[in-house]
């Protein structure tokens, strides 16, 4: 039915957007966007990072004011000047990043946003009833801090449903869910659709868009590049619409002779007590990564991946020096600098503020992780930094990884997420490390850059290094890994060789399939 619903002010359209434009300085984030959402449909909004999806949604939810363009709600022209107005119209939103107070209960969090003075007990009862009728079990009296990310999302959804919206906007809802949890969510969405509600579904996961969405609007560089029926498209054709060109598929040559290759990174019985009340303890983790292979670690956010990364990188030291071994030597008692000097390299999940200092230039950020390993080249006698050498090395990385930037040596914060990530990964690859540990290598990175980063990681492994990738993106892990292990509640499963691994199996492990696992997790802020 793609494109047939175009009659002006058609009452069958719940929301109609005409020529919506938003300009930030010199950047046109949204350029004359047209969008129709019919009653009772699930409408996908597709696009890469920076395509203008968030800007568009913020205008629909009243958080941003458009420069020009019109919005029609149920056939009538409306101005959505604030989220309050949006709610009154019947627009509800579930954000990608939750805004919940960890120290309050679910019901208290809901009461805060309803703000209508009804007593908490009433709200709790309503929330409980609603949660059961939609198959989203939730205990309104539980503390948010104790809930898993999936459960927190349920609070957000129920909070949204309590306001009986006609249109629900969901921003990347499955990015924090296991495949099984996502299935549950899809059932709920289909149920909502059958009640005549409309859903605007923002995602970059093409398979799920094909599965549940009736129509799709594709954005690229702030413009609508097409409307389509995703069920009639292939994932490849959707990707082509989003990116505007063929995305080079990642090529993974089969790894050979891995069994006999030397173990470059060994984790032996690694345990760690939780550092804060909401942190996850690590329990007896064992893992070996051999020269030439890529091992992936899957898992829902907040199951100990951050704690594991810190322990492996040496940002947190181990009591047992043998629990982390790099190239056959104990490294557990060494600092991150010591481990780097043994040939390891690390890329953390957070780019700004962890992997890079936001207010520092790229060349300074190069020095950040390599001042010791390249001490001779970068730091001269008396501790003077050789600025010109560092600068040219930074330029070399920028060229090699095709980092797009507005100035020769800009501050890290001035780069887009994808470009900064290319620089941070490139900074480590440039060293040709023999062990590389990456947490969320392509989180929030556009498809082209993601393919480039993944290919680079595979090539690093095939050239004889050991690569360990922690990721919540299963597609990515299946593309990259020779074997996948799953982290759940601080424990790591045995790696499944990629030939045996399926989404189903990994998904079950992510949900804690083995008995005796209490569901417990936290959002990594």
């Amino acid at each position, binding site marked *: 039915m793609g494109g047939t619903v175009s009659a002006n002010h058609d009452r069958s359209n719940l929301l109609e957007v005409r020529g919506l434009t938003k300009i930030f300085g010199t950047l046109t984030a949204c350029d004359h966007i047209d969008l129709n959402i019919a009653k009772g449909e699930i409408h996908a909004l597709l696009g890469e990072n920076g395509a203008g999806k968030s800007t568009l949604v913020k205008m629909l939810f009243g*958080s941003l004011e458009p420069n020009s363009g019109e919005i029609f709600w149920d056939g009538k022209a409306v101005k959505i000047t604030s989220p*309050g107005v949006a709610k009154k119209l019947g627009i509800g939103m579930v954000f990608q990043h939750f*805004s919940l107070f960890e120290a309050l209960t679910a019901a208290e969090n809901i009461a805060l946003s309803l703000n209508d003075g009804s007593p908490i007990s009433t709200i709790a009862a309503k929330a409980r009833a609603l949660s059961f009728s939609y198959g989203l079990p939730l205990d309104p009296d539980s503390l948010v801090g104790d809930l898993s990310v999936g459960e927190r999302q349920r609070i957000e959804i129920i909070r949204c449903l309590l306001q009986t919206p006609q249109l629900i906007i969901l921003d990347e809802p499955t990015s924090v869910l296991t495949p099984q949890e996502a299935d549950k969510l899809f059932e709920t969405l289909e149920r909502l659709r059958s009640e005549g509600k409309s859903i605007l579904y923002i995602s970059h996961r093409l398979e799920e868009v094909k599965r549940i969405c009736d129509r799709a609007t594709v954005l690229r560089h702030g413009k609508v590049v097409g409307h389509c029926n995703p069920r009639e498209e292939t994932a490849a054709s959707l990707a082509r619409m989003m990116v505007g060109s063929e995305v080079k598929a990642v090529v993974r040559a089969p790894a050979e002779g891995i069994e006999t290759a030397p173990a470059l990174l060994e984790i032996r019985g690694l345990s760690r007590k939780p550092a804060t009340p909401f942190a996850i303890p690590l329990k007896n983790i064992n893992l070996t990564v051999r020269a030439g292979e890529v091992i992936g670690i899957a898992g829902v956010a907040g199951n100990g991946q951050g704690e594991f990364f810190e322990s492996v990188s040496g940002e947190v030291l181990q009591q047992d020096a043998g629990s982390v071994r790099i190239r056959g030597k104990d490294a557990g008692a060494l600092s*991150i*600098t010591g481990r780097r000097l043994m040939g390891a390299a*690390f890329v953390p999940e957070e780019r700004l503020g962890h992997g890079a*200092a936001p207010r520092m230039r790229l060349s300074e950020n190069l020095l950040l992780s390599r001042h010791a390993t390249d001490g001779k080249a970068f730091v001269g006698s008396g501790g*003077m*930094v050789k600025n010109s050498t560092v600068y040219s090395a930074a330029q070399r990385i920028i060229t090699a990884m095709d980092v797009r930037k507005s100035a020769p040596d800009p501050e890290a914060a001035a780069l887009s997420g994808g470009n900064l990530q290319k620089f941070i990964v490139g900074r480590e690859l440039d060293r040709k490390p023999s062990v590389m540990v990456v947490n969320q290598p392509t989180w929030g990175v556009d498809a082209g850059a993601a393919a480039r980063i993944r290919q680079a990681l595979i090539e690093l492994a095939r050239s004889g290094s050991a690569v360990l990738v922690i990721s919540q993106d299963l597609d990515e892990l299946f593309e990259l890994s020779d074997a996948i292990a799953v982290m759940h509640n601080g424990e790591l499963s045995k790696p499944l060789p990629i030939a045996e691994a399926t989404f189903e199996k990994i998904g079950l492990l992510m949900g804690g399939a083995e008995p005796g696992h209490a569901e417990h997790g936290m959002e990594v802020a």
Partner: protein
Amino acid sequence: MRIELVKRPQRSALFSVLSPFIAFALTIMAGGIMFALLGVNPLDAFNIYFIQPISEVWQLHELAIKAAPLILIAVGLSVCYKANIWNIGAEGQFIFGAIFGSIIPVLFPQFEGPLVIPLMLLLGMVGGAFYASIAAFLKTRFSTNEILTSLMLVYVAQLFLDWLVRGPWRDPEGHGFPQTIQFGDSAVLPELMPDAGRANWGFVFALVAAVAIWLMMSRMLKGFEVRVLGSSPRAGRFAGFGFNRMVFFTFLLSGALAGLAGISEVSGAIGQLQPVISPGYGFTAIIVAFLGRLNPLGIVAAGLVLALTYLGGEAVQSALGISDKVARVFQGMLLFFVLGCDTLIHYRIRLIGMALTKANGTAQLEAAPKLEEAR
């Protein structure tokens, strides 16, 4: 009516540079109002306060004497503040530098020769660093707030000095005055140009320290470490820089420089220990550090300006009979306006009417996710 500070997406580079000058202009305006309220013609007062004290060469020497400790202390503090570590206790470190450095001339007056001064200076630095290390130790070991501990240690130092000069170190032939013996000739920091004025080597130390720290902060790996840990501690940890080591480094460095300032002051300008050896240099240096944009070269200029407020305070007291506490008022206003200007560089003010907030009861709650998104 409610006033909100909203973070600006971009800092203006121009106003970052202009901010100290705007602050200075605002201080002058507010000062003019203050003089007018005191019944003095502001123009006359400014002439006496800011112009006359630096109209002759010997007066410039006095300016250098006052500026030297301010600059020395402030360059040390600038390193702390760049690392996001808040040493407020330079006054105490200054005093302990003076006490340690005075050990030789007070307890071993018979020891003379060219080695005395270098040893005194070294001991002064050790004393200041030692005293600063207490706050550093408390912070790293017990996570105490260094602002509180370093500040409280100032009073301990002041009382300790008071006790020393009234008790064990009192000059037995001093007619009961609370002061030590006069330092011997070889324990007095030489004057630079004895024919022109009293300025001593302390001013040279200050300039050397400013240049050295500037070099460290802008060109050396150590300075990079300070800046990384100060601006993004987690990235600093990822870089392998230890935060606790940095706490000690900055405290020891700033303590040593404050100690050097202390012993230079006692050995050069005063010539003995007495109950009060500083008109608040350690605190005024905080203003100097911020007025100088935490840049050692800017601090040299800011130190000279603040030194002038001391001289001006003395001048208006003798010429107009106004209390020399006016100097404190000027310093306070200067800091207030500098911080105010800096805040307005990072934030803009938004006025929110009460009626509006009531009508959009939910608007405030919406602000939370909005901010979330904005980041």
